């Protein structure tokens, strides 16, 4: 593994607090994931790809923005791997890059209506923007 790949892997493991080696590849996280159908990479693949240092494809993938942060995979994993925390760490690594914001304030007016709760707007900013 190249040094830059290794540093990225270390960063993801450190900021997520997840140990991907605990995974026994049962797939339960992906089976319970409500965003499964819309994801290119599924929760169990995040775990495996971080473990093997193959993180670049994840950084580029829309799967990062399909995770609903519902914590179903966290609670239902029999090995307490907590895959959602890996998704979150990779997502942050992606949007922290200069110019990589997924959404800006200018995008908001056309995405909302009269009933949109403030909660939706602030949550989206937390997820899409740094």
């Amino acid at each position, binding site marked *: 593994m190249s040094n830059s790949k290794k540093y990225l892997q270390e960063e993801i493991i*450190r*900021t*997520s*607090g997840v140990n991907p080696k605990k995974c026994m590849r049962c797939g339960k996280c992906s089976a319970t994931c*409500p*965003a499964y159908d*819309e994801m290119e990479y599924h929760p169990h693949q995040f775990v495996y790809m971080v473990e093997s240092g193959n993180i670049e494809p994840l950084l580029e993938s829309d799967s990062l*923005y*399909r995770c*609903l*942060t*519902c*914590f*179903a995979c*966290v*609670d239902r994993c029999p090995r307490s791997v*907590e895959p*959602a*925390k890996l998704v*979150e*760490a990779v997502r*942050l690594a992606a949007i922290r890059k200069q110019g990589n914001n*997924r*959404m800006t304030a200018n995008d908001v007016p056309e*995405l909302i209506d009269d*009933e*949109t*709760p*403030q*909660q*939706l*707007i*602030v*949550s*989206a900013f*937390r*997820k*899409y923007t740094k």
Partner: protein
Amino acid sequence: MKFSYFPGCTLKNKAKSLDIYARRSAEKLGVTLEEIENWQCCGGVFTTAKDEVATKLSSVRILKDAQKKQQALVTVCSACHNVVKQTNYAMQNDKEFAGKVNRYMSEDEYNGETQIYHYLELLRDVIGYDKIKESVVNPIGKKVAAYYGCLLLRPNAVMRMDDPENPTIIEDLIKALGGEAVIYGYRNECCGGYVRMESPELAGKKSQTVIESAKKAGAEVIVTACPLCKYNLEKSGCDIPVVYLTELLAEALGVKEDTNE
């Protein structure tokens, strides 16, 4: 009995009724909710990354304010509750994170001492469902589907509200209020959450599954504590009412109409 209270941004705006009926019902039951002064938005979602500090400071400030008043903290919005509770858990258990926060805030050290109740826990554990039952003047008399979503229950290691796969805290309240609680499969699954912003299709699908599941079980009304759950369900063609559980409570306690707020 007095508690510190954090309503959050949505309860001051699009979800005013969630806030107003919470306060009014609490007063009726002998509890005063004292709003934290100068609070800031919790951010809506908790970031699990350990190196995210600034985004969690508003929650720590709220928790510290309650501690200064030596009060437990009450939240109503599911999202606020999830964010504040997960932040408090990190302050208790992640010493490196807590160290960074405490050095930055440079006042008295805080290590997660404040006790947090979701409004439902206040009703169940402090006031008690028996007392609530005695205070009911307008029994609900309807088939009500409790919609937990994800934020109230998960992650369970932190939230500790109820059994995350077979919760009863809302159903027991519905029964105490004279309603019939319907049990359905998707009551603790996600409505699609914030993804509504970028993919209304995905959020719509998730919400429709919840609606269908509740209706199939015979629900006449769905209750929630989350403004985003309510919005997502309503935007996804829900043809039965989705109401805040505080509204249902205020109605049953006979305090819904007595205001000009």
